[in-house]
């Protein structure tokens, strides 16, 4: 009789171990579907688990909404950056004056050197 009692205890213990193992290895499928595979494994009671998964689902939906809004904002900012870059690449009045000044300066130096050389040549003759 004692032996049967001991066997009964062993069986109960084994069942408990199996239940715990199943709880750890196979969490709620709904939560995994919503959040993805990187789900923190937990072993809560069913009622608590349902309550938590409901809250998680709401959070994920909110998170996705925020993500969409952020994506839209980032796209708009990217467009504005491209437009700004195009505007900055356009030549401005400073470049224009710099170019004209460069041309006049270059030809001024050329004129001086060329004229000096011509005058010296004429004087030698």
């Amino acid at each position, binding site marked *: 009789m004692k032996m049967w009692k001991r066997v009964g205890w062993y069986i109960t213990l084994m069942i408990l171990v199996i239940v715990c193992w199943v709880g750890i290895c196979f969490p709620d499928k709904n939560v995994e579907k919503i959040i993805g595979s990187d789900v923190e494994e937990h072993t809560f009671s069913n009622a608590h688990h349902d309550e938590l998964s409901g809250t998680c689902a709401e959070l994920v939906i909110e998170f996705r909404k925020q993500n969409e809004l952020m994506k839209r904002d980032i796209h708009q900012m990217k467009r504005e950056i491209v437009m700004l870059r195009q505007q900055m690449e356009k030549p401005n009045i400073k470049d224009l004056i710099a*170019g*004209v000044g460069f*041309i*006049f300066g*270059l*030809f001024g130096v*050329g*004129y001086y050197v*060329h004229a000096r050389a011509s005058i010296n040549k004429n004087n030698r003759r």
Partner: protein
Amino acid sequence: MHISDGVLPPAVTIGTALVSGVIIMLSIRRLHYEEYPKIAVMTAAFFVASLVHVPVGPTSVHLLLPGLVGIVLGPLSFLAVTLGLVLQCFLFQFGGITALGANSLMMGVPAVFSGILFRSLSGRRVFRAPISAGVAGAVGVIFAAIILAVLLTLSGKYFWGVAKIAVVAHIPVAVIEGFVSAFTVSFFQRVKPELINGVT
């Protein structure tokens, strides 16, 4: 109307650069120091003209002024155009550095041709100087567009469509350029006629 880097094949790039270099050397050799101020003013005008955008339909085009530069400077216009293009390349990033020879040839040759055309037309009694200048200015732009089309076609069949568009898009530019050249030459005729008559 500027060719960017990497559009032309190496053979065309080197060939056009060599031809442009030879023409520039010839221009420098026949340069007299009294012509420096005139060349400087026309180079500055050519340089600035690229920023004057004229709205044509949904897009806008800018003046090129090869005709006017050719009318005022004659054979020396190649030098002025090249210098203007070099500055446009470095300051405004218009056109590529490796394509400078092709760009110079594309704008310089029509400028010289416009000068010759203006001399030959204004010599006849039928054409007065402003009309000749208008015709020379318009022909200069069309000639430049044709050279661009030829250079693009040499680059491969992919650019044939772009070449056709470039020629068609420059027809309104040619008309505007003709009017600008005609008005400018008529102004020069009244204010300083030796500027357009003294080209050798």
